[in-house]
């Protein structure tokens, strides 16, 4: 008995020694790698399949690929001492599942031990990974995420950065345009509004109701529909019967496309025709059969901004298609900020977060891009198709926007 115990103890001791030795080798190996670093690893989990893949594939993934390709072609990321290191990418498909995106980010942080983690697509997914990113100390550059609670999140996770504004911002900028149009006598005070019963639609419509009502508008038709809806004949019929001059739809791309097609078939062309995600995609005019003049949505670009035009040309050349007119440029700008931050402070995560918070950067948005309370505020809120481009508009124009042109002409 004693002997067995002794043997067991000896065995355990031997195993412990082995384990310790293995650990020492592993740590040693890691130490060597850290000193003679020959690359920067950047990881991300993105929806390559599942319902979110469409949005991620339009706005986020191409910009990650474009940026990595550009940086590596130029010799890699520059560090403060002037040396350059190429980027190595570890990318996972989160299959549009919130559990999967959390698991993948955890893996990137603990097993792959990447230097930087880029965010996933979508508000919900960015919120899902935000606590993890904060826990592991990674700067979280939430690009494709619309939230009114960004200020609260910054307080909770001080290494998080929010680039897309909130629902209230988009809706109040749009309300300003509507008020000006009503005063000019171009539209009546009725609004027909529909929204998809899912994250984006719920958020936007919640902000829109009080905003429209406070501005004295009468919401004569206000319905939500399930995300699976593909036929809008009846809904548009009812909206047309409500005699509103303004039609607002907070929708995802499949609904945006279907609504446009149905509106053309039904010759429904109210003076203000405002749609959700998808109306700013470069493929939109093709889907609508050409005539999209006057259609409004979120985002928009300043066609006179040469930096932006150069970015669009490069995106088209390298990715093979044009970026969208809303989120793409914000994502790309966030990557440029990251690149310049690393050049200034190196790869220390908390130093990167501090520099992103306080620094001023030269991006495709402008020579002096900076964040306010970890949020990008200088972005375009309302866009409109004018002469084949989806441009940023405001009631009066100016400040990188042009004046909205209403009423919308009839469909061709």
């Amino acid at each position, binding site marked *: 008995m004693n002997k067995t115990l002794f043997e067991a103890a000896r065995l355990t001791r031997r195993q412990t020694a082995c384990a310790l030795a293995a650990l020492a080798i592993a740590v040693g190996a890691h130490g060597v790698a850290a000193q003679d670093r020959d690359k920067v690893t950047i990881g991300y989990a993105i929806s*390559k399949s599942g319902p979110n893949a469409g949005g991620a594939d339009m706005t986020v993934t191409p910009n990650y690929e474009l940026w990595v390709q550009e940086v590596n072609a130029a010799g890699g990321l520059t560090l403060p001492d002037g040396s350059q290191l190429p980027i190595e990418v570890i990318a996972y498909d989160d299959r549009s599942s919130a559990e999967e995106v959390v698991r993948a980010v955890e893996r990137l942080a603990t097993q792959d031990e990447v230097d930087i983690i880029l965010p996933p697509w979508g508000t919900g997914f960015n919120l899902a990974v935000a606590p993890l990113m904060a826990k592991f100390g990674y700067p979280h550059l939430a690009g494709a995420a619309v939230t009114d609670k960004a200020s609260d999140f910054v307080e909770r996770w001080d290494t998080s950065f929010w680039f897309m504004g909130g629902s209230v911002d988009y809706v109040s900028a749009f309300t300003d345009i509507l008020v000006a149009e009503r005063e000019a006598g171009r539209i009546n005070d009725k609004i027909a509004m529909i929204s998809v019963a899912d994250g984006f639609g719920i958020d936007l419509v919640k902000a829109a109701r009080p905003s429209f009502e406070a501005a004295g508008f009468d919401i004569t038709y206000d*319905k939500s529909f399930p995300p699976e809806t593909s036929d809008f004949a*009846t809904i548009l019929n009812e909206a047309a019967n409500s005699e509103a001059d303004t039609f607002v739809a907070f929708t995802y791309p499949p609904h945006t496309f279907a609504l446009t097609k149905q509106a053309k078939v039904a010759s429904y062309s109210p003076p203000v025709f405002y749609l959700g995600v998808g109306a700013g995609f470069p493929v939109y005019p093709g889907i609508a059969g050409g005539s999209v003049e006057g259609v409004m949505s979120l985002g928009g670009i300043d066609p006179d901004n040469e930096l932006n035009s150069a970015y669009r040309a490069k995106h088209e050349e390298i990715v093979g298609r044009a970026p969208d007119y809303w989120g793409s440029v914000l994502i790309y700008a966030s990557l440029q900020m990251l690149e310049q931050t690393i050049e200034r402070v190196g790869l220390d995560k908390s130093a990167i977060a501090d520099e992103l918070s306080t620094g001023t950067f030269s991006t495709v948005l402008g020579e002096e891009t900076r964040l306010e309370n970890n949020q990008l505020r200088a972005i375009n809120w309302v866009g409109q198709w004018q002469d084949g481009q989806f441009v940023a508009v405001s009631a009066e124009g100016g400040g990188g926007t042009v004046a909205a042109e209403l009423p919308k002409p009839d469909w061709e």
Partner: protein
Amino acid sequence: MLEHVVNGLVLGGTYALVAMGLTIQYGIARIMNLGFGDMIIAACFATYVLSTTLSINPIVSLLIIVPAGYAVSDVIYRVLMKPLVDRAPDDGALEVDSILVTFGLLFVIQGVLLAIFGGGYTSYSFLNTPVNVLGTVVAGNRLLALVLSLLIGGALVVILFRSRWGMILRAVALAPHSAPLFGIDTDRAARTAFAIGGAMAATGGVVVSMFQTFTATAGVVFTMKALIVVILGGKGSVPGAIVAGLLLGLVETFVAAYVDPGLTLAAVYTVFLVLLLVRPNGLFGKA
């Protein structure tokens, strides 16, 4: 009122069109094809490619894609389904095996589409012209779906009930174990039925791609809808699929118009549950 009936029938026409193929595959070949929706999506992409790269009119592309759907399904049956049919001790086992295998098939088709086309939204515009039907303006492409489903459904009913070939298919559906006693090649009949189902999935895909935005992973939505229609109509019944499809279209349209667009899905499932309580085998199912 009349406009809602027209809109409902037009919407239901799409449902009936995509469900008929599944009901034939299930009813005659006894294969519950969970990859059905992905075959529809594959046909959507094929139409898109033919129309954008070779500028082939989507209606003309029916002549290419529908036979291709038949051929591909024929091969799938020979390679994947035949071994299952041979080793299944009874119908129940075949049903379970076919569900498992086609569940895998679903991911294979999806994976191939993802690898080729990526996960993005694909959409184009074709025949999106207003057509006046009894005073209601409907989209030409959706009307085409209704007309095609009625034509194909009608033709299938005539073939199934008026021809010798149809009688053989029905015999296999009704009594797969007795049919060989009458000199019927059940394997060949099942393979033909499965391939016809594939050809109809292709037809559905070509038409649906004209008006609906699709992604490589959207197939499951079609499978779900088609399954509901098949079970509602009575599995294996072509007239049942048409009636159930049109019924669902009407229910969705009326609920959207008179109750709330947000309740359309809930209404569909309510109709589904109530009907199953009253007629567990579906509208046209064998009791």
